[in-house]
Structures are given as structure tokens and as C-alpha cells.
């Protein structure tokens, strides 16, 4: 069982959050944890265990039926499973979108978009349309779009799940560098244990529905992390422990 770490400095905290959908499906059961500035927390769990529901509650796309979730809702970045770019907008105009919805003046949002585009390594592709980009590049554009408003908390809903392994690992590195550079707090959802350990300061394991936090692992490796970390014994050992906990979660 995890202890509630919802201290006052937490940028995002769940305390005893439960979720029962209208059709009676119980998705989450008494989930408590917190994320402080500088923390990157990843949730792994079986399919359909309610991992994504956590993000939907944090971002207010769904309202939890029990407990409380506290977060500054004006400072959330949300990255969806797919890139959700607008096909009729160029990369630059896509990256501007969120700033545009917040009614920033044109000059400001162009400036912010240009910075974000450079940050994710898409310089030179500003005028391309999404259909001209590869899956990895679309995801970069999607990241840049969320970066524009410099959110304090970033929610990632299996953003790299649809990418091939090499692209995924490359984007893992990109995202880690952004994490260090921008200093946001991250809540990341994934199916991949390796990805979870590589990215995070802490990994939470959820049980099958109704989702509960059944195990919690601190990841001791210092940032910046290097690709070779994935092949070190200590890394493998931690992955093994998480894998065991996940097996328990399926029962």
C-alpha cells in the first residue's frame, strides 16, 4: 500500500480518489499519491486498469466520484496517445494553437512557438503539414504545442505507444532533456516497464480494475540518463521487480 505523499509542496496530488462510471464500472479505488516539482512519476498497469482515467481526472476531463484531486488546472500540459494535430494547420500553426486558444497576441505566440519548435528539434519543418511528417515528428510537434504555455505539470497518456522502438527511445531522451530543461513535474502513463524506469523518478504499479496503487518503486538513477543505462544490471533488476509486481496486478 502506498502512503499518501500529498504534502503542501505537491504540484499534483490525489488523495483517496475513486472513480465509478455512470454504467457502474469501478475504475479507480482509493488512489493516493502526489507529485512534487522536479518529479517524474510513471504509472504502469494492466490494460483497462484506469491509468488513463487518472490523467482525465487530473485534467478535469472527468470528475472523480470520490476523494480529492488537487492541481493548478491553469498550468497543465496534456499529451494525448495520438498527436492530435490539426491536419489543416502547418507545424508552426499547430504549435501556436494552445496559445491562440488562450488569446495571446499573435507576435507573442509566434515567438513562443518558434522557441518550442526549436526545443523539440523541428526547426526547418515549420511550414510542413502533419501528413508530411513521420509519426515521431508529429509527436514532437504535439509536445511543442503543449510546451508553449510552459505548464508546471505535464500529463502524458501513453504518448509514444504507437511508435517504433528506436523512435520511442529517441523521444524518451528528448523528453528527459525537456524535463530537465523546463523543470515541470511529469505524470506519465505507459505499458512499457523499460520506458517507465528509464524516464522516471518513481514508478507506481496499478492493479487490474478497479485500479489501486499496489506497489511503488523509487528509481535511484541520476539525470541526465544515458541510453546505456538500459543495459546495466541495476536497471534490469529494478525492471524485474516491477515486472513481478505487475504480474501480481493481473491476478
Amino acid at each position, binding site marked *: 500500500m502506498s502512503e499518501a505523499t500529498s504534502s503542501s509542496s505537491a504540484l499534483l496530488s490525489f488523495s483517496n480518489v475513486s472513480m465509478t462510471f455512470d454504467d457502474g464500472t469501478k475504475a479507480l479505488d482509493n488512489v493516493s499519491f502526489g507529485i512534487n516539482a522536479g518529479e517524474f512519476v510513471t504509472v504502469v498497469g494492466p490494460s483497462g486498469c484506469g491509468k488513463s482515467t487518472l490523467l482525465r481526472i487530473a485534467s478535469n476531463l472527468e470528475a472523480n466520484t470520490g476523494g480529492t484531486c488537487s492541481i493548478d488546472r491553469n498550468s497543465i500540459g496534456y499529451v494525448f496517445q495520438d498527436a492530435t494535430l490539426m491536419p489543416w494547420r502547418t507545424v508552426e500553426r499547430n504549435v501556436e494553437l494552445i496559445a491562440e486558444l488562450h488569446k495571446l497576441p499573435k507576435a507573442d505566440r509566434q515567438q513562443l512557438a518558434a522557441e518550442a519548435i526549436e526545443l523539440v528539434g523541428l526547426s526547418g519543418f515549420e511550414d510542413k*503539414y502533419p501528413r508530411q511528417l513521420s509519426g515521431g515528428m508529429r509527436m514532437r510537434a504535439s509536445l511543442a504545442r503543449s510546451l508553449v504555455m510552459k505548464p508546471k505539470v505535464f500529463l502524458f497518456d501513453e504518448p509514444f505507444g504507437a511508435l517504433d522502438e528506436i523512435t520511442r527511445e529517441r523521444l524518451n531522451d528528448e523528453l528527459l532533456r525537456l524535463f530537465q530543461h523546463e523543470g515541470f513535474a511529469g505524470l506519465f502513463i505507459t505499458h512499457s516497464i523499460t520506458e517507465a524506469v528509464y524516464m522516471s523518478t518513481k514508478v507506481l504499479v496499478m492493479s487490474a480494475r478497479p485500479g489501486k496503487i499496489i506497489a511503488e518503486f523509487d528509481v535511484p538513477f541520476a539525470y541526465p540518463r544515458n541510453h546505456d543505462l538500459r543495459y546495466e544490471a541495476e536497471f534490469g533488476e529494478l525492471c524485474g521487480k516491477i515486472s513481478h509486481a505487475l504480474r501480481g496486478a493481473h491476478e
Partner: protein
Amino acid sequence: MSSSNSLTSPIDEVIHEKRDRVSFADYLGPILVFLAFIGAWYLLSSVVLPEQKRFLLPTPHKVVTDGFFVWHSGERRGLQPILLSLWDSAKIALLGLGITIVIGMSLAILMSSSRWLERATWPYLVAVQSAPVLALTPLIRALIDGTQTQRLLVVVLIAMFPIVSNTLFGLLSADKSQHELFTLQGASKWTRLVKLQFPAALPNIFVGLRISAGLAVIGAVVGDFYFRQGGVVGIGAQIDVYRNRLWGPELITAIILASTLGLVVFLFFGWVSRRAIGKWHITTRGH
């Protein structure tokens, strides 16, 4: 680390697209079909039809010489009166199409914003679409003054459905996650419509426009049959006169030009569509 530092790593490959080149083979198809069509026409007018009925379908060269190459003869014969009538009908078709677009898209926007309204109006739109509008001519005459207005009404009734249905379908086609992106930013209904739903609907809207444009021409031509007055008459009325007097070459010439008008309008909207959305929207064909 300074913020101007770029955090780049080697970039994934950009997807390069093949530009479709139009080759001779692409023109060959339409040419072959045209030749086959002319051949079948000759066969029909000089072999299949019994001799005493051949005046009903003059041969292609007779249509060219007696229909297209006679500028003006008598009160109604010749290319000039046909073109004047065609222009008269084209004005009605285009004005009617404009009215249809405004009403149809507004209706679709209202329907997309309210499921209740959609359910309430949809069956009646389908009913109007299927109703034989021209059977209502006496009623239209009784209710509405002025030939032009009556003709416009026929065009609007006939051309309305594809605009409404395609626009509505397009407005409802945006992804759930795209909608959620807007929800997360607290976007208003209007912002959502303008920045998400409407652009997402454009490919469908253009499909609707092309179909409705063709129907508007048909509506104008058949409307002419029933609503006419002195002076310049529409192409439909002209066709009716030629038909009654059995002026074969003029009849066929007028029919060909009326179809050409429909084709031109159809091609025009195809061109506008490629200009407007060709950059980001691709239609695919499995190879």
C-alpha cells in the same frame, strides 16, 4: 543550459510525397470514351432508329452544322438564342446555389450543435429531398409571385440536401481527442466551431458543394420547363420549344450546352476545393 540551446537529435525522416504527374494515358481514357460515345450516336441515329424516326436524333455532324454553326435564324433557332437562354438559366442556378449554401450550411451548423434539432429536422430533409418537387408547381405558383423567385425556389429545394448532409457529417467528424484538446483549454462553442469543426468539415463541405452545384443546374433547367414568361427564357424552356417543334439539331445542341454548364460548375468547385484544401487533405485510392 541557455534556452536558445536546441535540444535536437537526428531527426526522423520526413515523408516525401510523390507528386502525381498527368500522363498521356490519363487523357487516353476520356478520349476513348468520347469516341465510343460518338460512334454509338452515329449507330443509333443512322442504323438503329427506323428511317421515319431518325429526325428525333440527328447525326453528330448535323448537330454541329445546323445547331452549333448557325448563329441566328428566325425567332428562336441558332446558337445565339441558345446561349442567351443558357446564361439566363446559369444566373438562376448560381444565385440559387448561393442561397442554398447559406441556408444549408447554417442549418447544418444548427443541427450539429443540437442533437435534438438534428433529430427533429433530419427526416423532413430526407422527405423534401425525395419529394417530386415539380409536382408541386401549381402550389408554388399560387404561393409565390414572380417567375424568377419560383425558379429559385425549385433550385434551392433540389440542391439543398447534399450541402446540409455533407456539412453536418463534416462538422461531426472531428476526433474525440481533438475535441478534448479544446475542452482542456476551456474553448467556447464558437471557438470550437471556427477553429476545429469547420476546418475539419471542409473536405466534406466541398463534396457537398460539387453535388449541389450539379443539382442546382438540373434544378434550373427543369424549373424552366414550368416557370417561364416572355422575353428571354431559360434553357429548359428553350429545350421544351425545340422538343415540341421537333427541331432536332437545336434540341440536341441545347441539351449538350446545358450539360456542359453542369460540367463546368462541377469542375469549378473541384478546382476551388483543390486550391482550398489540397495542401493538407489527400484523397487516397488503394493501388
